[in-house]
């Protein structure tokens, strides 16, 4: 991959990720005696489709230049998904954590995430996984798009093309220059029932990415060594100059495998005040929905009538099903 020339428009991409309990692999250890799942015993993982979103962001950054900023909202332990993002090459990571965010439904979550994206400054693309495996709602992406006033393309299985916005200096002037060219655009294919559709949105835009889109890269051993012990630091008066290699605030310049200078990342921690989130719209108070009842799925007592797998046993069963007009 070639390093993008510095005059080339660069992409700023925000990726929204979530740490989730691994509901897909419920093992015996996580089962309680009554046949229900002990949710606390499930390992915490990087939500799978959020990894696909991160991978798309990293590929776009590698092709066009720019910056990938990963945001997660969660308890302090969620910092682990941010480390995982750094291991794969994210430039910047942000932990959104505050008691005031607790108990948020998808509406309150999207409000906080939208505030955090705004705090980053101008971005060209917001990417997130289509859905998280703990709730499977697929709502936070479109709701965040609406809060940010961005067009959305959901359920994206392929990003076909990104044309970055032109800066004013680089833009050719004169008649025939469409507004779309100025703003840049993203063309993407989304999966629909029994097929697909391809859409083009002007930038900035929000896309939700499915597992079909790519195979996420593994962590880089070098980056694991660099970041494995990194801790979150509160940063109320956040300023992103630490990511500019020319800046005095840049801590150490690493050189990535493309030969691109990279500043050592920090784990930026923001609370509700830092992102100017209004009280009453975040957390449980900002959530219109309430969980009235949770019922663990319990395997019913076995009451199946057991049939011998012999010719006689099967014949009798088939006869019975015909007699009851179930088979006919």
């Amino acid at each position, binding site marked *: 991959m070639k390093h993008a020339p510095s005059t080339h428009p660069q992409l700023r991409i925000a990726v929204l990720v979530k740490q989730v309990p691994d*509901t*897909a692999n*419920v093992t015996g250890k996580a089962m309680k005696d009554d046949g*229900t799942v002990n*949710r606390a015993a499930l390992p915490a993982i990087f939500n799978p489709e959020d990894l696909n979103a991160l991978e798309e962001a990293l590929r776009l950054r590698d092709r066009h230049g720019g910056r990938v900023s990963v945001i997660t909202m969660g308890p302090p332990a969620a910092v682990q998904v941010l480390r995982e993002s750094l291991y794969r090459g994210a430039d910047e990571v942000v932990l959104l954590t505050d008691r005031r965010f607790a108990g948020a439904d*998808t*509406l309150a979550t999207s409000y906080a995430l939208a505030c955090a994206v705004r705090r980053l400054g101008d971005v060209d693309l917001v990417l997130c996984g289509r859905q998280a495996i*703990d*709730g*499977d*709602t*697929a*709502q936070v*992406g*479109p*709701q965040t798009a*609406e*809060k940010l*006033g961005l*067009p*959305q393309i*959901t*359920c994206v299985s392929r990003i076909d093309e990104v044309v970055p916005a032109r800066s004013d200096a680089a833009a050719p002037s004169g008649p025939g220059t469409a507004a779309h060219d100025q703003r840049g655009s993203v*063309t993407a294919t989304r999966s*629909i*029932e029994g*097929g*697909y*559709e*391809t*859409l*083009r*949105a002007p930038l900035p*835009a929000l896309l939700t990415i499915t597992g079909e889109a790519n195979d996420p890269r593994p962590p880089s051993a070098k980056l694991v060594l660099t970041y494995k012990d990194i801790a979150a630091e509160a940063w109320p008066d956040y300023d992103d100059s630490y990511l500019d290699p020319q800046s005095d605030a840049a801590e150490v310049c690493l050189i990535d495998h493309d030969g691109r200078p990279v500043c050592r990342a920090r784990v930026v921690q923001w609370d509700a005040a830092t992102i100017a989130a209004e009280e009453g719209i975040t957390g449980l108070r900002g959530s*219109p*929905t*309430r*969980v*009235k009842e*949770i*019922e*663990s*799925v319990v*395997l*019913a*007592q*076995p009451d*199946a*009538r*057991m049939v*011998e*797998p012999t*010719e006689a*046993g*099967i*014949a009798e069963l*088939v*006869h019975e099903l015909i007699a009851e007009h*179930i*088979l006919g």
Partner: protein
Amino acid sequence: MSAPSTHDRDAPGPGEVWVFVELDGGRPADVSLELLGRARELADRLGTRAGAVAAGAGAADAAAALIACGADTVYVAEHDELTAYRSGPYARLMTGLVRRYEPQIVLYGATTTGRDLAPRVASDLRTGLTADCTDLRIGDHSTRETSYQDLLYQIRPAFGGNIIATIVCPEHRPQMATVREGVMRLPEPDDTRTGQTVSIHVETAAGGEGREDGRASDPATAEPSGGRREATGAAVLLRPEDLEVALLDRHKEEKRVDLKGARIVVAGGVGVGSREGFALIEQLADALGGVVGASRAAVDAGWVDRDHQIGQTGTTVRPKLYIAAGISGSVQHRAGMDESARILAINTDPLAPVFSVAHYGVVGDLHDVIPRMIAAYRVKGAG
């Protein structure tokens, strides 16, 4: 905001139970009709009207079918910008109509369209939304401070199907949910039902009339025509930013497998062992006049096409007879079949979870059991 306790049951007004109707080639999608059937029941329970919002190509022509399936009011919106579904103009339409007519409940199919649209609408309206419900009921709810009557219970599996959650939205209106296809019964159309269509005037900023969203004269009822009264309804203005996303291409194949309508489903899982082994599943399905289903594992292994997948990420079925062969029965799979009238499980593992939902269990190798079933059925069928 709360729903009014009394209103005129014969005129469109606040408090209706709405369904957003997806049109597929001008025909209402099955999931929309299923929802309309349930909306009718919910509206009867609440003493209010059921409404359907039909937008896009063929919307006006679909009104009669929607009324036959239970709608009292059909809101029809046709405009070039609404011909095919796109998030921007459809979200603007729905938020405009909800603000104007104030339904208490709005239901959407949990399809790629419904799950793209509903969250955007909910965020704009700042109301609650529950995804992918498998049941809807009306009931009461109390907190320490307040008690609420006649809320929509939005019931859905969560946590990978390991829990069933009942969600309510006590303080905000409308209460909104997306609902999984196939879990509600398709209503029998009743062509003698009467209802009202309300034409929504959709315009774009380029149209120049510049009316505000949802501002309109009150609906005026016109002459009845064929059991259907027609009225002019609200106007909705689509803004330039709603129309920025271009649909470049759309490719959709008809579903080749009709699992939902099948009376008998013969489904195979990991225990089938191979692509060739699936021929046995097909033979049994053919013999019994059934349709082939599959677990996700069998689909992921490439033994059978994804159209056949049953379960949380596949199709939900409730046939008269469901035969699960070589399927262990994960919660995700059971979510798609456990309401079948009868379930027959064939598995070599007597402890397989599938036996816990089965009415008949055969502990044995499906490669032996299935040929015996086919033979027995042929004999009995001939006799």
